[in-house]
């Protein structure tokens, strides 16, 4: 095991609220590492509505989810946050020097305080509602490709029309016994270059593309054998037919699930973490919760509220880390001390 990453603050979740927390903590000299299961910052704003305008961010009459994320990234840059993307924080426990956290990729953190900014929970692939699919998961049905070897020499079926579906169709084609891509229509939401490559391989007979939808999984125990597909046959009317399938990778988008946070020994209130509205601290001193994940009387799940929560949390985190230091209240407009931290002086 590699040695643990030491940090003042560990922020779980790099959504808008986790990002702005870097700023508020940074003004108080608290450095942060952030972990997010997504491969980029922005949480819901970047994953669910990057191109849609938000109208209730103060002083920005209209800003898209992606623009807001980009601006936050620019604003927090002076504080040098360190990001760990594509990892989920699975375990969190108190140790002598603060807190120890471990991700699913095995990264270990030693943090003085932990800020849970986990929104609606970890983004997790959606499970299509096909009867009995659970039995095949992790042996025959996968929602992401972690180890290519699981697909070597197998009849692989990929369902979906986005970049992930196209990318894995192209990547697995050389090593699988056969690759079939199934999508409900001939248009894709993927990079045109990948679509062209897929079409060329199809024309060369190296993979199959079917228009249709999977309606049934057939197999024994956890071993998938075939799929029932409904779709037009040779340009004719829709029919149900079977195809060989030992591995299935369905891409039906992502949804948010609380995930491992439920096991961290914190008090929960309907899958949210209750906090007080002075410190935004959880039932465990030194563990804070801000943004969509927390709950208190009057809570509104707004980005605006999450920013405010971050500012107050940072004061409390400072008192937790430096019980003997006094925080002097200062404005960024006039304090040379704060401007130095922002890299302006």
């Amino acid at each position, binding site marked *: 095991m590699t040695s643990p990453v030491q940090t003042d603050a560990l922020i779980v979740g790099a959504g808008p609220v986790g990002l702005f927390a870097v700023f508020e903590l940074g003004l108080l000299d608290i450095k942060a590492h952030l972990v997010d299961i997504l491969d980029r910052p922005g949480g819901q704003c970047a994953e*669910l*509505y990057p191109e*849609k305008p938000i109208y209730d961010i103060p002083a920005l009459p209209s800003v898209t989810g992606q623009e807001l994320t980009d601006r936050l990234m620019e604003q927090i840059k002076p504080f040098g946050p360190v990001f760990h993307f594509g990892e989920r924080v699975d375990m969190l426990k108190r140790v002598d020097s603060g807190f120890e956290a471990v991700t699913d990729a095995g990264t270990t953190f030693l943090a003085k305080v932990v800020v849970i900014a986990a929104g609606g929970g970890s983004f997790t692939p*959606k499970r*299509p*509602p096909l009867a009995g699919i659970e039995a095949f998961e992790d042996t025959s049905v996968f929602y992401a490709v972690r180890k290519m070897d699981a697909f070597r020499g197998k009849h692989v079926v990929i369902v*979906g*029309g*986005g970049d992930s579906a196209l990318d894995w169709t192209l990547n697995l084609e050389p090593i699988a016994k056969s690759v079939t891509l199934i*999508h*409900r*229509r001939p*248009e894709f*939401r993927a990079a045109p270059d990948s679509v062209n490559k897929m079409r060329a391989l199809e024309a060369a007979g190296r993979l199959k593309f079917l228009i249709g*939808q999977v*309606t049934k999984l057939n197999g024994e125990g956890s071993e998938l054998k075939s799929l029932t597909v409904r779709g037009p046959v040779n340009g004719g009317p829709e029919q149900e037919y079977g195809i060989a399938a030992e591995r299935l990778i369905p891409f*039906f*988008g992502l*949804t948010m699930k609380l995930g491992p946070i439920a096991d961290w020994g914190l008090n929960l209130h309907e899958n949210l973490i209750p906090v007080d509205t002075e410190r935004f601290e959880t039932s465990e001193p030194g563990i804070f919760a801000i943004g969509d994940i927390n709950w208190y009387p009057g809570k509104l799940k707004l980005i605006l509220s999450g920013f405010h929560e971050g500012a107050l949390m940072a004061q409390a985190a400072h008192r937790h880390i430096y019980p003997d230091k006094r925080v002097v209240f200062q404005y960024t407009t006039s304090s040379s001390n704060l401007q130095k931290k922002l890299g302006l002086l």
Partner: protein
Amino acid sequence: MVKITYIENSGKVHTVEGEPGQTVMETAIRNAVPGIVAECGGACSCATCHVYVDEAWKEKTGNPSPMEEDMLDFAFDVRPASRLSCQIRLKPELDGLVVRIPEHQN
């Protein structure tokens, strides 16, 4: 007011009234019609407000926009009559509209 009939997969029928300008999704949620989840609150970002528009109403409700078509890729058991109900806005011509709710929202 615009009358809408929602038919659950079990066959249970709910006939309710909505206001022009509201969506078919909002009208379902306000009237506690089960089976429409609407995780994203109508932003065409979740595909959990999937319905099948009755044949007789397909022309009046129109076709999904390209953005809605993209989001329908994330719905399950999509058919030619599939729509995302947050993208159908009520107007007087839709008085009497009938939609069916699928067995599952993905």
